[in-house]
């Protein structure tokens, strides 16, 4: 099992990377009024057939050849279902995949969100040719990071350049603190 939800996000987003996505949209939306935390990962990668979609939540299904189990999606699904939440995967071949996990925010078994800036930073700086849109919302406050805006400014300087990755790190951490305020997710 993962120890925090941001690690599930990192893990599931790797599937989007492997699916050849050019754009990956990740959103984390916490709402204390409806008592829900909704995490979505949406990509424009190669997608899956209907048959594959029905199998991915089975831990004994995997497309890889180095081992015989695939626990990424089952872990994420279990993490949200133990809170009384719901899990959904939609996919279409050649169009992309949407993973949506809905958690009951105040449930005792909901894992902490953890370090989302660290997850986003490693996704952005380790996959410099992929664009990411990250939306983080807590009740009425939100911020959106769109790497296409960064790319336009940078004129070819890659995201993994030390100065640039430091900027992205501070951008993510600063904005998250501002949006989150005193609320611990």
């Amino acid at each position, binding site marked *: 099992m993962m120890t925090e939800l941001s690690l599930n996000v990192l893990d599931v987003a790797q599937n989007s990377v492997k699916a050849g996505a050019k754009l990956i949209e990740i959103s984390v939306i916490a709402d204390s009024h409806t008592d829900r935390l909704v995490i979505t990962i949406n990509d424009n990668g190669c997608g899956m057939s209907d048959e594959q979609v029905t199998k991915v939540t089975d831990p004994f299904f995997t497309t890889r050849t180095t*081992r015989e189990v695939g626990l990424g999606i089952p872990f994420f699904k279990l993490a949200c279902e133990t809170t009384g939440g719901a899990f959904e995967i939609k996919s279409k071949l050649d169009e992309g995949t949407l993973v949506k996990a809905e958690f009951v925010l105040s449930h005792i078994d909901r894992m902490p969100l953890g370090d989302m800036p660290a997850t986003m930073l490693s996704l952005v700086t380790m996959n410099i040719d992929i664009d990411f849109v990250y939306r983080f919302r807590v009740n009425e406050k939100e911020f959106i990071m769109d790497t296409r805006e960064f790319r336009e400014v940078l004129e070819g300087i890659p995201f993994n350049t030390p100065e640039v990755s430091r900027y992205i790190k501070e951008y993510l951490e600063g904005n998250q603190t501002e949006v989150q305020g005193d609320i611990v997710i």
Partner: protein
Amino acid sequence: MKSLAELKAIRDKMQGTIGLRAEDETATRVVVGMATCGIAAGARPVLTAFVNGVQEKKLSNVMVTQTGCIGLCKYEPIVEVIEPGKDKVTYVHVTPEKADEIIEKHLVNGQVVSEYIIK
């Protein structure tokens, strides 16, 4: 909130210096396993430690990258150090503290940290 103007300033400072980075064929590669098994075992802070350490020590000839599962899940977090012309070195059960030691001893001084390699 950080502004895009700050990023523009970084761009203006960086332009012209970017060509000085090492070509891929001569670079040492540090590869961190980041599949479900690696991440669950603690690979993310290990990756961060390598990225930060390599930046701090200005090791411009070292590239930190990630890979999927290499099939040795019980040894995760696994880090491979691949130097051109040498055998690949596989470190197992790596932690951020061990990462700092590997950077200092192996990447800076060229000494393999044999107590952390796969037995």
